[in-house]
């Protein structure tokens, strides 16, 4: 309150001082740890650092985002591989790319697969072979052995017979480690795929984990685009960085257009209202300062912000500019020489900032980074705007004189029209009417609104990217699905044993056609416990003459080596050519070991999830379903937050204006929200979390209007400020409604409808005669 007694010049000095402090803070933060902007659409939620499962998942997901795929196709294999070679040569020079691979040296042939188990051949058994030994079924064992010998064009028997005459090792290796077999290795070592009369060469770009950072992604994609494409060659590509680049371009375009247009409209509105260029320039400065404070807030609290935060940041223009409206409307009636020209509206401004900031602060309870970033940006931005209005505007008024002799006729007419409209609608029973409207709104919402929590519907990727991804999937055929099973063990052996216990369940899922196949490390690396059992089975089977038919066929005596202490372990096997292919399924994190089981061809994800839910030491990870479930929960949390905000506002209003005014003042934005949700539901078919989030903005702005009407009555000046505020907000949010990003558009549409209704209905508070405040 001390500030109120200060002269305009001293206020200006204080404003300059705090402004300098903030600017230096920003500069310091920008130099020491500049904020990064990411477009990683998969990291929507706040990192749960205390959850070890979550940390492991994040590492697995981060690894998956580092591969970018190019398919280079031509009808002639030679031409396609030459084009691929040229592409690889140039792409390898791109800064930010760790490596470009066309020839896959890591894919083991039969000899390297055999070598991957060198010295351990007598302790490996396939489930079928093991079963035939357990059952002591000589015929079945011989059938498995003969099928191998008789196999056309395969050399497994020839290559392993000397080291394991029982053929159990050949049987163990008689399968492919590859998830699908559409990929063919060409003579010169390229991975090629034939599809619709074209032969494609598969080229993989490895990018660092931070490549989804907008600037890095943009730089890599720009350099990739500069690579000269050969005529007649088809280039198809997909990967996280392309989505990141696309998202940043869309966001940038939208920020420029939506932000630019809304700001232009707002400034035009100011000029038409106050007829002064100085007012326009001052407001422009207020918006800039507000944005600067928002950026400072983001820099203080976040290391990385989502690109969508920058799109949502446009909303700050609509809210911050309100302070300018309130101030100019007040200043036009105040003598520039007055010591505190904004003293009349100071409380209203502070109350307005408090309610809005509280509304946004409530967004922080939702564990979605995006909402937290929007909240911090807006609160800091509004604080900057408030400080500027209270400290800078009096000095500017003193120098520039914003006072005028008469207010525009338009607002007078609007005030009259608005009054007439509400006079007709409002009888004596104002409260029952508002309560009925709110109740009807909620009933209609429950009947007509369908919620969708699928995060995929929040983003709109370009059709070119979508087409490319579809084409890549078509060409590559069956790929691993996004869902996987994550298993935890305290030691590598405990983990392998845990996996082995799960294998029967997984095989049953294949038999039941729930999944097409799966990839598990224990299928290729048995635990020491299993290796001991396998060797013991082989030794006993040989003693019992179970390989007699094979011995007779080969004309030699089959022998088995007894193993006592030399066993294959993950640290040895994962460095072998075959093991390297499975390394991505093995993760060691802070003393705990994790393994991943990947599925392909999932036919029934619900059954899969249900069957795997009860397994011990493991979690079924379905990122999309998990996100959907979390979003649904957050939506409910947000509605609870909304209810808390409602109660809190009602409590504060009751203290100042009495319960009747408080009830109406709070119920009007609630009613506006329920109707806005209904309208959004009818327009969008399904509504989402962002529509609900819009409710908080409606509540915040609606409470602002209620405060001003309650404080100053249904006056012409308040009609002017609320109309201007509503118009500026409508410009901003209606613009957001045109965003190509569905999440942003949902938010914009709901706020737009809500603000229109709030503006029309908020003067209802003045029809309550009881309590403090003014009634007209």
């Amino acid at each position, binding site marked *: 309150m001390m500030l109120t007694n200060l002269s305009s010049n001293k206020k200006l000095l204080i404003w300059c001082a705090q402004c300098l402090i903030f600017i230096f803070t920003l500069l310091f933060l920008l130099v020491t740890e500049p904020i990064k902007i990411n477009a990683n659409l998969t990291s929507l939620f706040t990192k749960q650092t205390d959850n070890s499962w979550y940390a492991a998942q994040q590492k697995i997901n981060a690894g998956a985002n580092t591969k970018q795929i190019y398919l280079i196709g031509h009808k002639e294999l030679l031409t396609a591989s030459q084009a691929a070679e040229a592409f690889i040569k140039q792409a390898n020079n791109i800064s930010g790319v760790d490596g470009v691979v066309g020839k896959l040296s890591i894919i083991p*042939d*039969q000899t390297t697969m055999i070598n991957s188990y060198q010295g351990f051949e007598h302790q490996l058994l396939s489930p079928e072979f093991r079963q035939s030994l357990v059952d002591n079924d000589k015929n079945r064992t011989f059938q498995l052995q*003969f099928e191998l010998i008789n*196999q056309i*064009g395969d*050399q497994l028997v020839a290559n392993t*017979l000397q080291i394991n005459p029982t053929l159990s090792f050949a049987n163990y290796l008689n399968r492919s480690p590859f998830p699908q*077999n559409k990929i063919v290795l060409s*003579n010169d070592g390229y991975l090629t795929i034939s599809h619709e009369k074209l032969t494609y060469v598969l080229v993989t770009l490895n990018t660092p984990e931070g490549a989804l950072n907008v600037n890095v992604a943009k730089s890599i994609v720009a350099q990739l685009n500069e690579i000269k494409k050969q005529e007649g060659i088809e280039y198809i590509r997909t990967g996280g960085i392309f989505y990141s680049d696309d998202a940043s371009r869309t966001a940038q375009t939208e920020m420029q257009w939506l932000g630019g247009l809304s700001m232009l409209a707002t400034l035009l509105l100011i000029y038409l209202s106050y007829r002064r260029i100085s007012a326009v320039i001052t407001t422009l400065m207020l918006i800039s300062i507000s944005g600067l404070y928002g950026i400072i807030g983001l820099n203080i609290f976040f290391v990385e912000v989502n690109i969508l935060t920058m799109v949502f940041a446009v909303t700050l223009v609509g809210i911050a500019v309100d302070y300018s409206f309130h101030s100019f409307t007040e200043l036009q009636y105040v003598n520039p020489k007055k010591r505190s020209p904004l003293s009349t509206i100071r409380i209203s401004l502070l109350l307005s900032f408090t309610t809005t900031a509280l509304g946004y602060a409530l967004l922080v309870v939702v564990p979605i980074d995006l909402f937290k970033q929007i909240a911090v940006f807006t609160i800091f931005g509004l604080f900057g705007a408030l400080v500027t209005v209270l400290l800078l505007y009096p000095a500017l008024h003193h120098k520039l004189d914003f006072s005028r002799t008469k207010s525009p006729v338009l607002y007078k007419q609007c005030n009259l029209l608005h009054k007439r409209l509400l006079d007709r609608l409002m009888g004596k029973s104002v409260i029952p009417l508002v309560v009925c409207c709110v109740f009807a709104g909620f009933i209609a919402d429950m009947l007509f609104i369908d919620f969708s929590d699928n995060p995929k519907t929040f983003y709109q990727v370009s059709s070119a990217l979508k087409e490319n991804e579809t084409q890549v999937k078509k060409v590559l055929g069956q790929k691993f699905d996004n869902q996987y099973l994550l298993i935890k063990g305290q030691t590598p052996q405990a983990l392998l044993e845990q996996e082995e216990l799960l294998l029967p369940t997984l095989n049953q899922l294949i038999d039941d056609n729930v999944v097409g*196949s799966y990839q598990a490390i224990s299928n290729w690396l048995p635990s020491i416990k299993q290796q001991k059992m396998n060797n013991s089975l082989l030794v006993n089977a040989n003693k019992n003459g179970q390989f007699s038919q094979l011995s007779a066929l080969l004309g030699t005596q089959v022998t088995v080596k007894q193993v006592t202490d030399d066993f294959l372990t993950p640290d040895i096997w994962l460095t072998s050519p075959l093991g390297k292919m499975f390394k991505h399924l093995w993760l060691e994190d802070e003393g705990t070991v994790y393994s991943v089981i990947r599925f392909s061809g999932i036919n029934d994800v619900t059954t899969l999830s249900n069957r795997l839910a009860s397994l011990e030491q493991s979690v079924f990870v379905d990122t999309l379903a998990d996100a959907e479930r979390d979003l649904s929960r957050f939506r409910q949390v947000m509605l609870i937050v909304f209810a808390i905000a409602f109660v809190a506002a009602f409590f504060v209003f009751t203290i100042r204006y009495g319960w009747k005014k408080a009830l109406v003042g709070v119920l009007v934005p609630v009613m506006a929200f329920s109707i806005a949700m209904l309208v959004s539901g009818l327009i969008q078919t399904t509504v989402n979390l962002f529509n609900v989030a819009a409710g908080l903005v409606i509540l915040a702005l609606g409470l602002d209007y209620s405060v001003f009407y309650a404080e100053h009555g249904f006056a012409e000046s308040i009609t002017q400020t609320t109309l201007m505020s509503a118009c500026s907000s409508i410009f901003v949010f209606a613009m957001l409604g045109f965003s190509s990003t569905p999440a942003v558009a949902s938010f914009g549409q709901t706020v737009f409808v809500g603000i229109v209704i709030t503006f029309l209905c908020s003067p209802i508070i003045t029809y309550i005669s009881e309590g403090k405040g003014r009634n007209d």
Partner: protein
Amino acid sequence: MNRFLIALITIYFSCLSNVFAQDVAVVDTEQVKPSSVQNKTKVIDAFKTEQGIASFTQEKHFSFLSTPIKSTGVIKINQGNVLWQVNTPVFSKLLIIDNQVWQQAQIKTQYGIDEIYNKVATHASIETLINTIFTGNIDEEQWDASYKNEHCVALKPKDTVLSKAILTLELCLDEIATIRHVEITDAQKNITKIQLTQTSTTLSENDVNEFIIQ
């Protein structure tokens, strides 16, 4: 007596005409026999089979075994898909449908033993090999074909994975039109000889049903 002579002469000429007719038929067959095929394209074309049944005998000569491993069975071809059934010495069934290999397996159920097909993920492109051998569909993207003699073409795999397993594949036509010979030499010089004898050019409904995977 005259009547007898007339009858005798009639029978003689009738037999003579049949002999001529047979000669003509032999000449017709000669025209499409492999000996008349002068280039590899014609040999390759002669190998192509869209539909049919053949019995086979297979001999695998391993360099480290004194006697070959023998097996016999039946091959069925339907619209480019292959069913390879080994009958002796042990029974096994392999289906290749749209370049995917399926192996028949028996599983124990509560009602007894059930036969199912399991997808086989191969690492030596054997589906390419089996398709080529049994359907005669030689994809020049995957094989280097060369004309060996008037009966035979020699194929070398272009695919690196397959070329590490197979050195050459020789497809030969026999003097008898229904017989074909296949000789596979693997990377370790082990030789597999297969003789195919076509028994039918059509499939019954039951045969076609065998290509349906439940």
